[in-house]
């Protein structure tokens, strides 16, 4: 039974150890070197927030620790995450994760914990050099812990797999901007999530099929060229000369935020009105857009340098330098893509989200786009109110 089958769509965390031969490395932060981990013959699997995780953290974490960390900790304290062979934490991203890794090591001393330290400063050669060395050290520790060295061929095929996934996901994102009703947002979020949980050919085939079908529809409408230009523009971060001239009866909404779960956002939209999640044209979330629009690794380069460059090529996170750039990018998207409203998601007790939110709201108002803030926790404890909030917002856009 593979890991992917064990993890159900209802976002339950497996309680039974996987019977497969797979070595599964769980990870928390979106910009994880998937190709590198796969090249070691290890499966990287994004650890999901579970709406059913409660308590278990009180003896170790204060309540002001970010709600994502408390949720993961609660899962572990409840015996979950046991199908993982190890867990990868990021360092130099935020203060909750920085501390929780240490606390985790103390509380669960039998767990294999790995750390990857990211640069927070400008993405130029110095940051690339630093991150490549960190990746090399990480690769060594994978080899030493699991007895699996990095395989060059493995790296090539992993890069191919990940590129296929990203390419298909990018196509879906771009097509949906032209017509969100082509594929439900929740579907795209699910397929992305599925790949991040189990990066294998099945997951890629699924998303590839959806991307092909969607491209075909747009091709028949004569819009495939526009979609492709959009995709390139989004990848480059500039959007070029593209403008959308869509007529739309449903409001066109963009969702921005950090490490919130896109499927949770989708389900909130589905519960808040007749148009459901068709109103979501685009997200700028860490586990959505920023994962999907990561540049490909350059196979001509040393694998560590190539991976570092790929990771540092994404639009920056609130955990990094680059706020002015992020705000400019947001404004460009809002004005060029005919967006009627912006939903700013904030993970409960998340410093990066909460510092960024007022700037995002202000940027949106500078291009005359109304916005609301959506405080969200992994347990969706306030689901009814959140749906009500979204519904009210959509009513103001009518």
């Amino acid at each position, binding site marked *: 039974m593979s890991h992917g089958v064990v993890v159900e769509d209802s976002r339950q965390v497996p309680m039974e150890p996987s019977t497969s031969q797979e070595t599964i490395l769980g990870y928390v932060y979106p910009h994880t070197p998937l190709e590198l981990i796969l090249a070691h013959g290890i499966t990287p699997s994004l650890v999901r927030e579970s709406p059913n995780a409660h308590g278990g953290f009180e003896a170790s974490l204060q309540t002001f620790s970010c709600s994502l960390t408390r949720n993961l900790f609660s899962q572990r304290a409840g015996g979950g995450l046991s199908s993982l062979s190890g867990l990868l934490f990021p360092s130099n991203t935020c203060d909750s994760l920085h501390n929780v890794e240490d606390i985790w090591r103390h509380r669960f001393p039998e767990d294999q914990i790995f750390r990857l330290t990211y640069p927070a400063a400008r993405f130029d050669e110095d940051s690339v050099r630093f991150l490549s060395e960190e990746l090399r050290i990480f690769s060594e520790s994978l080899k030493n812990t699991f007895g699996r060295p990095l395989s060059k061929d493995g790296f090539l095929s992993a890069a191919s797999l990940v590129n296929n996934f990203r390419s298909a996901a990018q196509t879906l994102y771009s097509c949906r901007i032209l017509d969100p009703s082509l594929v439900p947002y929740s579907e795209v979020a699910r397929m992305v999530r599925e790949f991040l949980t189990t990066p294998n050919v099945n997951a890629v085939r699924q998303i590839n099929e959806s991307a092909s079908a969607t491209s075909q529809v747009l091709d028949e409408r004569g819009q495939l060229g526009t979609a492709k230009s959009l995709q390139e523009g989004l990848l480059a971060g500039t959007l070029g000369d593209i403008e959308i001239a869509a007529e739309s009866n449903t409001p066109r909404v963009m969702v921005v935020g950090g490490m919130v779960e896109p499927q949770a956002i989708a389900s909130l939209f589905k519960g808040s009105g007749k148009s459901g999640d068709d109103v979501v044209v685009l997200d700028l979330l860490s586990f959505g857009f920023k994962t999907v629009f990561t540049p490909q690794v350059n196979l001509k380069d040393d694998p560590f340098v190539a991976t570092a460059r790929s990771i540092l090529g994404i639009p920056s996170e609130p955990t990094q330098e680059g706020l002015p750039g992020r705000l400019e990018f947001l404004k460009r998207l809002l004005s060029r893509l005919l967006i009627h409203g912006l939903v700013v998601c904030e993970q409960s007790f998340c410093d990066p989200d909460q510092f960024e939110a007022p700037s995002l709201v202000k940027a949106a108002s500078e291009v005359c786009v*109304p916005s609301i803030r959506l405080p969200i926790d992994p347990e969706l404890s*306030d689901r009814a109110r959140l749906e009500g909030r979204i519904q*009210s917002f959509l009513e*103001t856009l009518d």
Partner: protein
Amino acid sequence: MPGRKLGIGLDVGSTTTKIVMVDSQGDMLGSHLVPTGASGAVAARRCLEELTKKSGVGTAGIPTTSTGYGRSLVDFAEKSVTEITCHSIGVHRLNPEIRLLIDVGGQDSKVIHIGENGRPTDFELNDKCSAGTGRFLEVMSRVLEVSIDELGPLALQSNSPCTISSTCTVFAESEVIGRIGAGESPKDIAAGVHAAMASKISTLSKRVGVTTPVCVTGGVALNPAFRHYLSKQIGAELWMPDSPQLTGALGAALLSLGL
């Protein structure tokens, strides 16, 4: 249906359920209010029955819009719209000058910027924390051993409110107990409680931006001390409709005219 056009609005809140019927001009023909109790659906039906009796008008077939926390429970409503939109429309009908609406209910508080067409253009909610809602005052009135209706007049007797610094209802409660134990006068403590609550609502309002004239609605609006301290903190006069609890249902009823 031949004859005049009518509209019904139902506001199913967590504490009370309200119904309003309007004519084609948007004037109120009748209304009713019941405690929601354990079933919003039952409360909604009861309201409808009472309205039929009171108004002498057959309500079957009249377009109905539901709003409020329990809006999805009203099976006979054609449409459900959130209370942000409905309060905005209702207040706009009663006083089209109003640009800022502050609604403080039993369980949450909202600040809504009303556009010129009566629709909300911006809003902020406090729906996670009980401090800044009617709940806060309920807890404090129990500690001070007065009824919730007596709390406001008691506070108005004070010229020197105590400072209640906790922003959390639980901590504020123990702070108040501490002050009672220290022999401070109940009226000063009551005043401090209202000032603390007004401060929280004031911060929420400033996030939307205080544009006058300002209207206050919701159960807590009936409290004169709350209005006094809120007015001071936001630096503006407050207008209150005659029936502040019915504005949501009124807005919903007006929306029904468009159905």
